[in-house]
């Protein structure tokens, strides 16, 4: 299917929306610091993310059947200038990131008060805004080096956010430090890869890169660049065996940080990987060499199984969920490595579904942390009866994680298995359902502990505050809603998969318009 070009001469306010998506949160960060008031900080952040959410929903609705929106920064036309290039793939991820950011901010209002040093609250919101800007920027931009810049902006903010957990547990500091080292190595590998690509092709614009690579064919420089990019992104995505920073970072970070990161950070990097694998290197490289089958598929399957097995034996809720996340990232990679329309659709749909599911579960963990301190299993035993609404939302999240029909997780699992069977790979399909069984084990252990085991806690534990309960139920409702009314996510995902799989278009000449 040829991608139709939507030509935008970005003169009206509406056409400036893509840049607003980045500028508003970006400016909110120093404003928050300038005003210095904690309450105002929250209000600014919430307004910025809500505004971004509104814009991304508009973008998804505009692009879900195809088309591209291109915005030229400063009026300089690509491939010399930097452009922001949005199609169905990005729009979906943008919507995910802004949705989670907004809902997590609702949640943050109470969570931050208890888990972060009161002196640092404004710094927290400023870092949150920077991280959000960085993540949105990674997804929205159409220039390879720009991806690196935004990647580092978001990563640095992430290190700060994770380290803020030191108020409660000093191991957050070493977790943040490890994450810093590994994350920087990853980003630097990525930039080396970009450097090799630049050396070989002379351009940094993603579309132009695609053209020039397909013209040139393969040479050693381009292959080396690919290798560096994959490893670099792999560190950010936390594919096994490059996942070592993730469990500790998620466990010791403040709850709201984990809520935000688990749903968005790795997904943005996976998006970049998909862009490079399919839009840029395809079709001369990725399929011709079967690199994906040899490297990605085994790693993905290893992630799915090993991470789930480790999760079964955890005794701390957040740590268990962190390993579960690594396993789910395996599913995402498996979908991509199937290399067919269904597999990519499954990956994109699962990015969204897993995002809302994991955010919900970590929110539940945060509520438990608020009430009982450490979320080890012995502390949270029996809380289901004392906090019924929270626990019910957590159960919905758990069911979505397993993939019970009627929840969002089921849809992505169905499409993934369908993708595997469509290729005729029944052994892959079997592996997917078997690892699903593993997730039943660790999830059910959690449900048993919350509900069936009698609690040792006495006294004054009450239900969660409304500011934390409302976002949880928004996400729980979303899990159920997107499990039956799938069109809103499925349509853009299918278009996106088609876009990714089709030939790269030499569209530079067609995207007129400037952003002056």
């Amino acid at each position, binding site marked *: 299917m040829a991608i139709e070009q939507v030509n935008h001469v970005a003169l009206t306010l509406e056409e400036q929306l893509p840049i607003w998506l980045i500028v508003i949160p970006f400016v909110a960060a120093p404003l928050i610091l300038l005003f210095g008031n904690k309450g105002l900080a929250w209000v600014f952040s919430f307004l910025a993310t809500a505004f971004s959410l509104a814009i991304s929903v508009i973008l998804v609705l505009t692009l879900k059947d195809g088309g591209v929106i291109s915005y030229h920064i400063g009026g300089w036309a690509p491939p010399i200038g930097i452009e922001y290039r949005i199609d169905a793939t990005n729009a979906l991820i943008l919507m995910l990131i802004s949705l989670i950011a907004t809902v997590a901010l609702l949640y943050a209002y109470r969570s931050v008060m208890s888990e972060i040093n009161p002196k640092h609250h404004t710094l927290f919101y400023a870092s949150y805004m920077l991280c959000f800007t960085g993540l949105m920027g990674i997804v929205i931009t159409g220039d390879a*080096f720009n991806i*690196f*810049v935004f990647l*580092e902006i978001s990563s*640095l903010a992430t*290190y*700060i956010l994770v*380290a803020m957990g*030191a108020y409660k547990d*000093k*191991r957050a*500091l*070493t977790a*943040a*430090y490890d994450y*810093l*080292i590994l994350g*920087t*190595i990853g*980003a*630097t590998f990525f*930039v*080396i890869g970009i*450097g090799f690509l*630049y*050396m070989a092709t002379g351009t*940094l614009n993603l579309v132009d890169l695609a053209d020039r690579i397909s013209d040139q064919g393969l040479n050693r420089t381009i292959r080396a660049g690919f290798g560096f990019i994959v490893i670099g992104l792999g560190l950010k995505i936390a594919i096994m065996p490059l996942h070592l920073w993730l469990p500790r970072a998620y466990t010791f970070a403040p709850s709201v940080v984990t809520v935000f990161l688990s749903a968005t950070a790795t997904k943005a990097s996976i998006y970049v990987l998909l862009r490079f694998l399919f839009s840029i290197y395809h079709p001369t490289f990725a399929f011709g060499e079967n690199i994906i089958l040899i490297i990605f598929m085994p790693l993905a399957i290893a992630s799915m199984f090993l991470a789930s097995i480790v999760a079964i034996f955890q*005794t*701390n809720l957040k740590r268990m969920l962190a390993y579960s996340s690594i396993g789910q990232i395996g599913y995402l990679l498996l979908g991509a490595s199937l290399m067919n329309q269904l597999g990519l659709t499954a990956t994109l749909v699962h990015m969204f579904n897993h995002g809302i599911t994991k955010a919900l579960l970590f929110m539940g963990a945060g509520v438990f942390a608020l009430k009982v301190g*450490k979320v*080890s*299993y*012995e502390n949270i*035993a029996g809380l289901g009866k004392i906090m019924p609404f929270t626990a019910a939302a957590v159960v919905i999240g758990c069911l979505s994680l397993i993939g019970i029909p009627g929840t969002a997780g089921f849809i992505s699992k169905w499409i993934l298995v369908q993708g595997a069977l469509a290729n005729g790979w029944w052994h892959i399909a079997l592996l997917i359902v078997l690892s699903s069984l593993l997730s039943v084990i660790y999830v059910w252990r959690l449900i048993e502990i919350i509900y069936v085991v009698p609690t040792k806690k006495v006294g004054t534990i009450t239900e969660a505050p409304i500011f934390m309960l409302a976002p949880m139920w928004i996400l729980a409702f979303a899990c159920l809603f997107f499990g039956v009314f799938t069109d809103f996510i499925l349509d853009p995902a299918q278009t996106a998969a088609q876009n990714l799989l089709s030939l790269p278009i030499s569209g530079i000449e067609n995207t007129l318009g400037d952003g002056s």
Partner: protein
Amino acid sequence: MTWEFILGHMNYWLFIILMLIGLYIVIAKGNLLKKIVGLNIFQVSVFMMYISIGKVIGGTAPILPYDNTGHVKYGLDVIYSNPLPHVLILTAIVVGVATTSLGLALIVRIREEYGTIEEDEILDAETLIAEKENEESEAWLA
């Protein structure tokens, strides 16, 4: 692998050697500060690679020539080196500086909390904490 080949690609060799030295330091050294040093060396090697590929043979600095009055002289036939990598590297240097300062700030805090910046000592301290936690969990699970 002729002598000319090696000499002609000197920048790449240096890049590789520095990159590996940097990575080795990050992995092998136990002192957190030294890891940051290694990270810096690693990043510097990348900067060097980018800048070196921008140099065009016979190229001069990418600044438009101007006469004594300060007006730019257009239309002259000059070969310029590629300015783009320089710009990219400026950005990357800034990122590197920010990362280093963040890393150092974290090290200061770690020193405050743990009393040491040696990786193995910190690991011991954390293992103690984890063991205590595990004891409580085991007792409960039984």
